[in-house]
């Protein structure tokens, strides 16, 4: 049953997200794209862009998006409730003794191990998104995409653009290229 699967998948994703919204990206990729095949990696990149330019926690936006495109309205409910529930359960369980639980050496040392690994995982996610966008199906390089991403990256570094401005720049660039008859 798709609804239960969605709920359980996003419950698992919420449970293993250590270090905020972006840490969720490799997990979504592993489950939603690679394992279940609910969406393509290109679609996922679009979702990330849209989720970043809409209000609210990124994790909630992206889960809702995955849920609704996979199984409609009810699917969005299942995914969103699933992703949030582990947070609520864990916080309520430890609420009375949070500083003791999190200050305990077992928790601290385990998290010290997870922290660098999460960065590595996000690196892989970025890497696979890049390789999908930079190479066309035949394996030839997509020079326009490479040039655009270098330009956007430089822009954000130099002008410290916010996420929404960056997304807008991307959209405008896409439209402008289409006007010139170049497809990304």
């Amino acid at each position: 049953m798709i609804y239960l699967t969605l709920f359980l998948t996003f419950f698992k994703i919420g449970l293993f997200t250590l270090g905020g919204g972006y840490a969720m990206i490799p997990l979504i990729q592993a489950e939603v794209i690679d394992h279940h095949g609910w969406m393509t990696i290109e679609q996922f990149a679009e979702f990330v862009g849209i989720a970043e330019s809409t209000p609210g926690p990124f994790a909630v936006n992206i889960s809702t998006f995955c849920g609704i495109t996979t199984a409609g309205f009810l699917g969005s409910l299942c995914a969103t409730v699933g992703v949030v529930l582990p947070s609520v359960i864990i916080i309520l369980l430890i609420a009375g003794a949070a500083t003791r639980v999190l200050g305990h050496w077992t928790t601290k040392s385990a998290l010290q191990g997870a922290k660098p690994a999460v960065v590595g995982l996000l690196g892989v996610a970025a890497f696979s998104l890049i390789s999908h966008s930079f190479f066309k199906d035949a394996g030839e390089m997509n020079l326009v995409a490479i040039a655009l991403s270098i330009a956007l990256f430089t822009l954000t570094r130099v002008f410290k653009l916010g996420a929404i401005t960056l997304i807008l720049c991307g959209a405008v660039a896409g439209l402008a290229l289409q006007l010139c008859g170049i497809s990304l």
Partner: protein
Amino acid sequence: MPQLPETPIASTSEESSLLRKLLTLILVFGKFGALTFGGGYAIIALMEDEIVHRRKWMSAEDLMDLIAIGESTPGPIAVNTATFIGYKLAGITGSLVAVLALVFPAWLIIVLISGCYLSLRDNIWVAAALSGIRIAAIVLILQACLRMWTKLKRSWFNSIMLAGAFYLTAFPSINAFYVILGALLIGLLWHGIRPRYLLPKQGETP
């Protein structure tokens, strides 16, 4: 529950009725959910302004403690922090209300947008804009990755763990969940068990 005078919530949160507290929680967290762009940390900045300075629900230090807890428990930081603040102010009901209020606007907006997305994404112009957005999203993820990397303490343990996680998920394509589980275990062994039980205690070494 003591009888309540009709006073503003901000100054006498302890005495105000549960219902009013819950309503305020809905308003405050609904606002966080509906008006903050850019995820967890943007919400946290707004939380400090609203919860510490305007409503005086708790001191800045207390809020920082809650945020630190939200960062080191699994799940989205904003959701964790909202759960905790709701719990501190109005118990379990408070935590559920705060989370629902935070999540609902974000959920609703995506539900509305996704309708347009699904019906328009094949339009040539929309598709062109989306392909540009895709590149921008990649840049965002890359930046988040770099940001997390610069915040990481430079140590050979961290370098090996980072490189190991990268290698294992990229090449033998080991599922990210197992990598995280393994990393938690290695952290526990290396930073927890080893200095505690395996290394000689400082006082005992000659």
